[in-house]
């Protein structure tokens, strides 16, 4: 069973094709990166994967089932690109709330929240309301919300966006730890170094189509490029104005 099996995914909004015949698979315990310019279709693809929107055509299987089913959703989490936190809930309460929403009982949610508060370095901000947290701290709380149910599949849209260098490294280390623990991770980022550090497989998407798919080293070799950044520049076009 794969973590994600996407076959011929197409999403059309009116006359606009956001995702065009996209196919890829992510194995269990595999880290997968979706890279591409702004408006390339990354977020739409991830939304199809999470079952938030239905594909116009094509099929998607996540953890062997329908991504909008309760069973699958209990085992996966998503961190949207520009997600926010609750202004009137503390860091602890926010993570605990998501634990309960994802089917943990009170004791499990409490225990897991305590662990994550410690793991994410939020001990001093444990009782701080969301409205008083910095962007980096909010991102950490959001990660806690995603990890609270110990998901088998973690989907992260720009997880280090807005974080300082140290926090970004902490997140990357955390992702690598999760992969080592056998979790499947799908990540999007504009930071090519980060992608190279985290992802085992890369899909480059441009104008809704996957233009390159494979392991980073193999792709660099196939396209005769020195870095992922060069490969990105070579295979993508500037965003339409």
């Amino acid at each position, binding site marked *: 069973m794969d973590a994600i099996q996407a076959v011929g995914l*197409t999403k059309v909004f009116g006359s606009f094709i956001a995702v065009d015949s996209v196919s890829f698979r992510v194995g269990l315990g595999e880290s997968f990166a979706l890279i591409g310019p702004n408006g390339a279709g990354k977020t739409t693809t991830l939304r199809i994967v999470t079952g938030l929107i239905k594909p116009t055509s094509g099929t998607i299987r996540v953890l062997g089932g329908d991504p909008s089913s309760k069973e699958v959703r209990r085992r996966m989490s998503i961190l949207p690109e520009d997600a926010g936190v609750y202004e009137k809930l503390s860091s602890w309460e926010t993570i605990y709330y998501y634990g309960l929403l994802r089917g943990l009982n009170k004791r499990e949610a409490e225990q897991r929240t305590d662990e994550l508060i410690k793991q994410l370095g939020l001990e001093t901000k444990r009782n701080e309301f969301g409205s008083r947290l910095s962007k980096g701290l909010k991102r950490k709380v959001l990660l806690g919300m995603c990890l609270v149910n110990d998901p088998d599949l973690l989907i992260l849209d720009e997880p280090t966006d807005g974080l300082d260098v140290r926090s970004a490294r902490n997140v990357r280390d955390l992702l690598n730890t999760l992969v080592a623990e056998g979790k499947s991770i799908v990540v999007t980022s504009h930071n090519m170094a980060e992608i190279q550090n985290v992802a085992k497989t890369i899909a480059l998407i441009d104008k809704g189509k996957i233009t390159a798919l494979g392991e980073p080293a193999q792709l660099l070799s196939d396209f005769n490029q020195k870095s992922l950044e060069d490969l990105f520049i070579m295979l993508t076009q500037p965003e339409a104005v």
Partner: protein
Amino acid sequence: MGWYVILRKDLKELVRNKRALALVTIMPLLLFSALGILSNYSLTKTPTVITVVNEDQGYGSINYGQQAEYLIQQYGSSVDLVMVNESSFSVAQQLVRNGQAVLSVLIPRDFSYLLNQTYGTPNITIYTSSGGTKTQVASQIVDDAFGQISDYIRYHRVQLIAGNNASSILNPITVQYQEFIVKNPFNTTISTPYGGILPALIVLLAVETNVGLIVDSLIGEKERKTLEMLMVTPVSRWGIIVGKTLAVLSVSLLSAIAILVGIILDISLTFSGLAASITPQQIRIVPLEGVALVAILAATVAITQLITAAMSAYATNTKEANASIGLVMSLPVVSMYPLLFSSLSSLPPLAQVFMYMLPFTYSYLLLNDTLIGPASLFDVVYILALVVYTLALFWVTVKLYGREAVIVGGTKRSFGFKRRKSASATPELQSRDQRT
């Protein structure tokens, strides 16, 4: 029980939002109290002016015109009535037109003379504006004053003809009144000039103070970018909407209780002191009625919130959603305004159909029957209508929030202009491309 988790979390957030909480609980108390004080001031502190143009020249030592003036002053002393003598009736009429007096009385020159003739019938002219509690009270006082003089004259004339049998001639039938008091199931007594508009006031205030809460709860999630994560949890869309609506409804229950206390304050303050003589009956809301009132208000607020939620489903932020609040707030006015002046059954058929389509009509009718009565079997239908409306609005709201546009935003603006259509997306699109 995802809905319960959402309910508890939203309730926690609402309770921590002190400003919103104060708005829905303290504001009704303040508003109704202010209304009561202002109404009381209007009824008692601002004098009710009557102008009298007394041209009566009397008959011998008798001057009935002066007696009428005396009686008007006597009867009007309890309501701060001021009687002003004018020499010209046209000036007195002008005072009424200007709003400086509520009523003007012209007593003719031959008033006493004609009254002293056996068959004389002098004409009293009363010039007044229509409507208004003060006008009604002043008219009643003038009627009572001239009524007393009429009674005396009538008796005096009959006595001249029939001697001691005058009383039997004037009162051939002894009427014994057995009063039937209209009661609602809760045995409430609110019999004031306020009665008719009170249910409307209550519905309006319940709607106005609570309408914004759901916008912050639902669209706030969207605006704060927390909705997408919430929708990827195992909780169903039904669970999300139910949890959020119930959380807001819990706060609205507090508001409903505050409104109920506000009503009692309002009426007590309005008809306190000098004004108590206008309406001798007092408000008395029994506990069972209190529960019924809170339940009706809660249902009304739930419907308000669901309509607002449904209407703001297309909004991307609270600013856009707030635009729909104005429209929602106008619905109770539309549904209750005609009922202030006539019953629902007296309206034209099309207007009736329109009124029955508005949920606030049922709220008004139920509140009216609960507070003023009489209750009937129709109330059961009204309750069912409110329940059906609530469920239907739940369904509509869930459907609207289940749309992809809630997540991806407006499709035209976001996606329509940036990129041209690809020629190789799907076989269907390919064939469409070829056709075009």
